[in-house]
């Protein structure tokens, strides 16, 4: 384990629990470890406990039990040291509509104890980096959702934190803004060695960005590992074929069954899990051709993180992600 506060200290969590007065445990005894410089994707549907975990790790909510060290410091006993080492862009960008982007940066820098000159320099640098130079002196109330997100990211970076928490940073962003944010997050980890703890409900985001992924459901981590490892764990790719007119479904199924076990497919199509992986695809094509079985569509499906989620929980994450109305266990509940 790295010494407290050292650049080698990442995030360590042991049996972390958060209970609210009404309702089940929002976080139910999770363990995780994030290496310094790593991008850790925390994936789960709404209400799974992602944001509550982030609130605890950023010292905004004390755990009910368990332990967590961030940058080598205990989040309960050494909260001020944790806050000095981290930056966070939370789910809802907490901005003051009456301040401009530049004023926000100046305020944030002042809160972190940066001197006047340094504040100005750092603010200009970050406005440039997140593409808000032209809007810098406009009040934030006129910013679009994407601009607010970018400003929030800049604010989180003002004091050059070692660890960055991003809570669903791309929710509601257009594809261009999302892509720009992904690039910046990757650059921070790669070039500056920033440890990134990223929560998301988007499978693609976790797949593209994260070195390792933790999947949380109903307060518990149900799977953890690199995206590749997690996908490999749940099985081999499948091939799905849609019969052409004249070639019956049965004929297609007869051919495909030689390459693996049949699994659920779209209406009218046949799908099998390939016994020997994607390498079987060429043989499938050759066999269909040699036996005169014509198909209109042939698709190779690699396992996705959604398949991992489905395997571990029995539900599909992609379907769950659409249920925006299900609120995460939040501090508001604690007030009840």
């Amino acid at each position: 384990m790295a010494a407290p506060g050292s650049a080698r200290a990442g995030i360590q969590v042991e049996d972390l629990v958060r209970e609210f007065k009404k309702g089940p445990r929002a976080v139910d005894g999770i363990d995780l470890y994030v290496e310094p410089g790593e991008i850790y994707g925390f994936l789960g549907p709404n209400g799974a406990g992602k944001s509550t975990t982030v609130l605890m790790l950023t010292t905004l909510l004390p755990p009910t039990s368990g332990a967590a060290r961030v940058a080598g410091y205990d989040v309960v006993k050494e909260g001020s040291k944790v806050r000095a080492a981290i930056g966070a862009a939370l789910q809802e960008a907490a901005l003051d509509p009456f301040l401009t982007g530049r004023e926000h940066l100046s305020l944030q820098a002042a809160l972190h104890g940066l001197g006047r000159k340094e504040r100005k320099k750092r603010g200009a640098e970050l406005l440039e980096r997140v593409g808000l130079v032209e809007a810098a002196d406009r009040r934030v109330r006129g910013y679009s959702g994407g601009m607010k997100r970018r400003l929030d990211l800049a604010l989180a970076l003002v004091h050059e934190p070692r660890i960055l928490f991003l809570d669903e940073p791309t929710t509601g962003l257009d594809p261009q803004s999302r892509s720009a944010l992904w690039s910046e997050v990757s650059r921070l980890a790669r070039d500056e060695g920033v440890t990134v703890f990223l929560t998301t409900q988007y499978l693609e985001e976790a797949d593209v960005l994260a070195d390792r992924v933790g999947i949380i459901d109903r307060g518990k981590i149900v799977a953890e590992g690199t995206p590749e490892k997690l996908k490999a764990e749940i099985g081999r790719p499948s091939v799905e074929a849609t019969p052409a007119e004249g070639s019956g479904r049965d004929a297609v199924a007869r051919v495909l069954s030689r390459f693996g076990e049949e699994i659920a497919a779209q209406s009218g199509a046949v799908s099998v899990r390939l016994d020997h992986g994607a390498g079987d695809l060429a043989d499938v094509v050759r066999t269909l051709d040699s036996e005169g079985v014509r198909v209109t569509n042939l698709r190779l499906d690699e396992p996705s993180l959604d398949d991992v989620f489905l395997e571990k929980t029995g539900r599909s994450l992609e379907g769950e992600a659409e249920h925006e109305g299900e609120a995460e266990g939040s501090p508001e509940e604690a007030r009840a």
Partner: protein
Amino acid sequence: MGDRAGGFFSVAFAVAGRQVYKYFANPAFLAPAFFPLFFFVAFAGGLTRVGDVPGFDYTGGYVAFQYVWALLQAVAMGGAFTGFSIAGDFENGFARRLLLAASNRQGIILGYTIASLVRATMTGVLVTVIALFAGIPMSGGFDLFGLIGLAILVNVAATLFGAGVAMLLRTQQAGPVIRTPIFLVLFLAPVFVPLNLLRGWLETIARLNPFTTILDAARGFLVGTPTSVLPAYAIGVALVAVFALWAAYALRRAEKTGA
């Protein structure tokens, strides 16, 4: 990359800077002076003859008698309005940014208090300028600093009280809970006539009300005949101390339940 943390005062000045900037960006920052000015104009104008009532022994005259109360009300309401701002910051989530960035979170309370003092200075000056136009005497000389000192204590105590309520409730619904007790304390004192002319339950309550002593001392300072100085300052300092603990407790509660 080194860990960057602002100390207690960095946090306080950053928070105060934002609040003060917002005051000056919005003329509504003088709102705490509106009620006191209304009362001052209405009562000092309409009840001037009260100064002729036998037993009314305040040497500065009735307008000056009313001015001191209006001034203390203005600075106290300045504190209440700061409480409203804090409640707003918690409701719209901005407080979370402050709590997240502030290495020393107690500095946030000091920041709001400094900003409240700036606001109270502006509203106090406004009330005083209008009172000077109305012809109040300023015969207290250096004793006027005593009056200013008491006004500061009243503002700080009201701010800390409001901050405590705001951080406990963390919603703008906290407004009436902050405002009502402050109004009660201000009005259940010798507002329109001196204590010796009050009768019945109001006299009893006014005698028990610690604000009465502060008001008497402040009126004494204005005309250069200080009375009850020590008790008034002791009460003022005690109120600040008690409400500082109250605000610190409320901050701890906000931290525990999540801002």
